[in-house]
């Protein structure tokens, strides 16, 4: 089965047997110990979800520094990224139920956020079960933030992600998440010399306050030297509602409440992160800056086998720089069994070629479906 999800775009004219739907895309970044619980909850709601493994980084404050170092070290935790689509009307309810189920409101458990997308798929997703589900009444302690932005940084080079994550932690933005992916777009256009370029990419996912995004991104670009050729790129997409993990530091706490807890409390009181604004949002008018304002993000979920054909489609349409990551699928009709062998390919494409990319992709999806019958159609 193949879904194409597009952010920030007008619905494309329906092509072939594909259906277009406006849905809410929920992403939940959660400590791995709780991913099973979250997935079985989603299964009980009858929702299909995709799982990816990553790690979150936090600053670890040593009980006693030796005086040589400042005592702060990065510590990583295995985390799961769960992605799912829900009807727009139910997005907030589903998020609330997930938050309640795995107690996401506790700092250190994880974050969750929701984005509006348009999905193209061979068959309409089945939201029957979730529509009929009776959700519990909204709990008092969950207040979602509405002014967030989701930043994805694609970095080439081993361990480059850690540096960027450290920068994000130092800024106190959020708990960064690192995942691995492979980018073969440029490599495929080279001869055997491609072996000198590693396809491995590190992806750093950040949730940042929207009003500070310009300046935060500016700082991150400098820190990760993204303004130099060959290092990578980053893009941001809007978040409709979200809940942040505020546990940036672990280890020794010298006060009754940690600064993270205090921030979380004020966030909740104010129901926004506006008050945190402290960076000069002075926009740098450097002409060399390569910000492309009119890009949109396209994600393709497919069988691993289909990626090569799909890649040809998007590269020929002029999109370059997609990163493919391994995911597995949880199918609620299969008693929540995990199926591996799926991948998600994400890319940021300029608006003007968007239609062509999507058109090409849909064509390939249809062709593969008909001829090889390897791409599965979502079970209704």
């Amino acid at each position: 089965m193949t879904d194409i999800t597009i952010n920030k775009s007008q619905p494309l004219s329906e092509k072939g047997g594909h259906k277009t739907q406006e849905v809410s895309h929920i992403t939940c970044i959660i400590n791995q110990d709780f991913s099973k619980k979250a997935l079985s909850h989603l299964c009980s709601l009858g929702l299909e979800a995709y799982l990816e493994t990553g790690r979150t980084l936090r600053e670890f404050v040593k009980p006693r520094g030796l005086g040589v170092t400042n005592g702060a070290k990065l510590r990583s935790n295995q985390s799961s990224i769960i992605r799912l689509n829900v009807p727009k009307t139910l997005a907030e309810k589903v998020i609330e139920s997930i938050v309640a189920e795995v107690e996401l409101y506790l700092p250190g458990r994880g974050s969750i956020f929701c984005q509006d997308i348009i999905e193209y798929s061979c068959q309409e997703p089945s939201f029957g079960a979730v529509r009929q589900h009776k959700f519990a009444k909204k709990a008092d302690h969950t207040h979602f933030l509405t002014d967030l932005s989701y930043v994805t940084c694609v970095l080439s080079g081993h361990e480059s992600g850690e540096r960027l994550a450290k920068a994000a932690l130092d800024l106190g933005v959020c708990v960064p998440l690192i995942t691995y992916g492979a980018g073969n777009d440029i490599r495929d256009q080279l001869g055997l010399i491609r072996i000198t370029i590693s396809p491995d990419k590190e992806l750093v996912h950040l949730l940042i306050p929207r009003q500070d995004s310009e300046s935060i991104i500016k700082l991150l670009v400098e820190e990760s030297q993204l303004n130099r050729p060959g290092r990578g790129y980053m893009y941001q997409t809007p978040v409709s509602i979200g809940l942040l993990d505020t546990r940036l530091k672990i280890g020794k706490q010298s006060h009754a409440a940690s600064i993270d807890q205090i921030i979380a409390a004020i966030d909740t009181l104010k129901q926004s992160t506006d008050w945190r604004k402290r960076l000069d949002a002075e926009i740098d008018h450097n002409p060399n800056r390569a910000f492309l304002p009119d890009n949109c993000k396209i994600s393709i979920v497919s069988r691993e086998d289909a990626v090569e054909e799909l890649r040809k489609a998007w590269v020929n349409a002029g999109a370059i720089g997609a990163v493919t990551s391994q995911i597995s699928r949880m199918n609620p009709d299969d008693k929540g069994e995990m199926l591996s062998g799926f991948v998600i390919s994400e890319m940021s494409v300029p608006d003007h070629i968007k239609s062509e990319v999507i058109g090409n992709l849909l064509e390939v999806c249809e062709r593969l479906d008909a001829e090889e019958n390897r791409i599965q159609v979502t079970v209704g």
Partner: protein
Amino acid sequence: MIKQIKISPKDAIRMIYGYAKTRIVEQAKSIAFIIIYLILFQVVILRVPLENALGTAGGLALVIFGLAFFLEGLVLGLMPIGERVGVKLPLKVGIVVISAFGFILGFGATFAEPAISALRMAGSTITAWDSPLLFMLLEHHSELLVISVGVGVGVAVALGMCRFYFNWSIKPFIYIIVPLLLGLSLYASNDPNLSKIIGLAWDCGAVTTGAVTVPLVLALGIGVSKASNKGGSSGGGFGIILLASAFPILAVLGLGIYLNASAPKPTTETYFFSPEGKSVADKVFLDDNELEWHLFTHGTEAGRIAHFGDKSAYEQALLSLESDPVMRQKYLGDMTFASWIIEHASEEERHLLVEASLEDVGVAQLTKVSQTLKEESLAGIQAVIPLTLLLLLVLLFFLKERLRYNDEVALGIGFTLIGMILLTSGIRLGLGSLGTEVGKHVPKAFASEEKFIGRVVIHDFDSTHLYKAVAVNGEQKTFFNIYNHVYDHDEMRAIPYHPRLHDVKERRYTHMLTEQPLFSKRYIFLGFALIIVFAFGMGYGATLAEPALNALGMTVESITVGALKRTKIVQIVSIGVGLGICLGLSRILFDWPLIWLIIPAYTLLIILTFFSEEEFTAIAWDSGGVTTGPVTVPLVLAMGLGIGGELNISDGFGILAMASTFPIITVLSYGLYARYRQSQTLNENSDD
């Protein structure tokens, strides 16, 4: 088709330069520790100058290039093929065919990367009368030994495939196999003959999984577990190496129990070589030539006298040895007469053979570069090509799949082959010779007596040069002065005079050259401590450079998305190997029975396994299997044998077994610690 980008030659060279540089620097770093360590140990602590420093340096350069090529080849060629076959196989065929394929692969891998030479080396000091069964296994039934190990590995890979296919947990395997192995070993330890093969069996388990097999099997396992559609978040791909280490132990113990029925019981040396014991000896040796060769190269004077009937007949034979090259070839084989006198002859025998020249021993056996390269090329081709070809054939013709990048895979296979050849040649020429050299001198650390290393005959010895010196208590001793001799060059040195070394009639004095022990008798424990420390460092350093471990580390890092770094895994495993080698060496030094090291270690492992996560359990047990590879084995065996030879220990087995047990302990412990840390992130906030 995607249109191609043209790269100018100048840019291409720049790209290749950067690419090659990072890989070579990385490997140089990984072997830096062991090189600096060995050199410092030899020069600073043992105070022996480096022999053939240039050759060693050249060999080390080969090792660095070899490792870089080999690892890159694995990443480009072998692992993608293995994974592709693993992914496609379950889609086309059922579990029976997959298991059969696994069996063939495992069985073939044992022949492709023969560990038997390493085992023979470890068993080179065993004596036929002390451990007849072990001797027979290694010398006459080595084919049978390799086949049973092959069957063990084959069954292991087949079972591993079943495990991935049906998504079985690894823990029940451990809970069944390990107690079974311990029980069998315990049973074997009660039989005088079988107890000797416990070491061999456990070492077999450690050395079977070679540097090419491990990555291939890992990649295959990842593929199968991915395609079996039950992967989820589990650490797929791991666990086969554990099985491939355990089943050969079972197979070898079984073979030993089977052969034990026809093997003679251990006996004393004099009875064994005497005419009365001939019937026993005949069961062990193929013919009298082999018996006499073993008598001279492994036996002692008492055994030789017993063989020749009486002392005078033996002395006759010994003197004929000196004059007759045919006899020498018959009795000593390839060993030179001089090195026989130095290493095997008793003082009486040396005295008898006072005329014999000791000149030719000084010729260090300098391995020829071209010869080594030729031999290692053959071994490398044997190790890399058949297995890769098997997988490729299955992929291309049986599964009718194609590779994504043909050129890249072909280049990868080429890199692997070049890397393997450079690595093993480099080890023989550089790292191995450095290790052997240190291993040879290390026994000095705990020797309490002067060691005979040679002699000089002083002609025209004039008795008038003798003088007497007096001690405080009035005791007198005779000395003479000597200068321009072997160890001090121009300095004059007083030498105690022994009348029995003086042939007055021929005016000849035989001066014995000896090596001083490093520590005096009172501080001998320091010598032992030094050896243990040395062993730890060597095990640690050699493991850092082990290519199969690095391949495993890369796989772990990508599966855990960097939560468990390759460098971290390699460090933890290396510490485990270091500890294991210390313990294995202690067994040799203090002659502990191996079974009493194995049982507590594995009991601890079962307890740790019980508390560990599934994913981590498989990784930990696998890392135990990959540690003993082409870098560690030659170094460790050289040291173990050097020390074993000094102490007249029957065999050098057990070190490798311990070296692959302790990494499992360290990795599992680390896993438990990491889980504690992970829970720390969560627990602290449950109080708010």
